[in-house]
């Protein structure tokens, strides 16, 4: 059995689980998140965040970049992002790795 999971936090490397796939739906003209027996329709902001979770850096770095890019208060972006990701994590749709084993660039 695997060890206890890492919670979603800014120090972790967060990305979609290997069985979850973000995809453009040309028929419905929106992005969809596909997972076993589930189809989710994320809002554009959620899509933007998920597209940045490429496993190359910590969530902290992702939030920093979004705060710069959108010239928005960092704490607001961080709170919204963490809340959305915690929700996805509860649904077992994320892969969350502690930074020590993630070979991350900070």
């Amino acid at each position, binding site marked *: *059995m*695997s060890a206890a*999971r890492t919670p979603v936090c800014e120090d972790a490397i967060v990305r979609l*689980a*290997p*069985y979850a*796939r973000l*995809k453009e*739906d040309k*028929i*419905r*003209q*929106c992005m*969809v*998140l*596909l997972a*076993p*027996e*589930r*189809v*989710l*329709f*994320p*809002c554009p*902001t*959620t899509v933007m*965040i998920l597209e940045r979770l490429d496993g190359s850096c910590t969530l902290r770095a992702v939030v920093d970049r979004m705060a710069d890019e959108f010239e928005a208060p960092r704490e607001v972006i961080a709170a*919204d*992002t963490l*809340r*959305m990701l915690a*929700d*996805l*994590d*509860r*649904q*077992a749709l994320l892969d969350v790795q502690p930074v020590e084993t993630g070979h991350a660039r900070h």
Partner: protein
Amino acid sequence: MLDIEPAAPPSTLKEPWGEPPMGMLAELTHRCPLQCPYCSNPVELERVAGELDAAAWKRVFAEAVELGVLQLHLSGGEPTVRKDLEDLVGEASRLGLYTNLITSGVLLSEARLLDLKRAGLDHIQLSLQGATALTGDRIGHYKGGHAKKLELAKAIGRAGLPLTINAVVHRQNLDELEGLIDLALACDAHRIEVAHVQYYGWALANRAALMPTRAQLERATAIVDDARVRHAGRLMVDYVIPDYYAKRPKPCMGGWARTVLNVTPSGAVLPCHAAQSIKSLTFPNVQDHDLAWIWQSSEPFQRFRGTDWMPEPCRSCSFKEQDFGGCRCQAMALTGDAANTDPACEFSPFHDLLRLTAEDEAASEPPAFTYRRPLANAPAMGTPGLVGATKGMS
């Protein structure tokens, strides 16, 4: 606010026929090495000679994508008996479908598993019939099957393919539910589907051998609730309740011809896998029509779509947009009329009979299983109705 809840797709796509389907269940074959008595395949299994070939399936996949299907469930019977499965998975993947293989696992080698992964398979659902070899092999009627499944589960982990364990539960394996959840964790599955038997096809014929007691159901629900908390974020536990003990009916298939469609081995297209039990409907075939016409315009798909078809008590019910009157096939099987309210609903005049039937069967000594096999090899059997009204099988 960020919104990641499952939601209706953008409403700009509202058409007179509703919305495009999101999922397609492709029953590639009715052949299966297992003989589970809870199988929801029709009692009259389709023959190998009538199965669609790979070219026909590929055309159907392409039509499904054009229509809006996002997820493809490759099922059966046992889909791995098809030698062209890799070819079919490859084409589905090329078309961008999320591909899910629903398998018993007993015929699948590690080498072939890797071929399927290379072809683009996204996910595997592996069935377990019990937590022990004794129970699993008895229910599947396949000696050595349980051990093969556990070997395959390890191979799935080594291949890095995501795994769901499918556990259909009933009176003869519910005492192993905790063991089934432990096995799912041991197999590194990310999800387990604990599904009480739904009584269609072979399962309906075996209902008295499968129906749990209310006490078994309550214990199972408590085990699932506990597992959901204890394994949150690690193991998703999906739970399908037995509607004979329910007050409200299930929104069967999310509503008739609303989100999913089913294609049988010979190409008949159904709004749900049991729909052919409604003998008054003639279902169109992909060999005669394209999928878009079937979904949007064919009579059987329109027959129970939406809420306009509903008689009372559904018509004036405030739940009608939530449960769509329940299951048409169950209404047909148990009340003789597919347009009736599903007897699982407490507002159905048949509801008390349904509950009494379940309690009566669960309290009796279980009869021997009638194992799923081609009819020529199966003993004569009846299809049970409700207490006091047993119907013969035609």
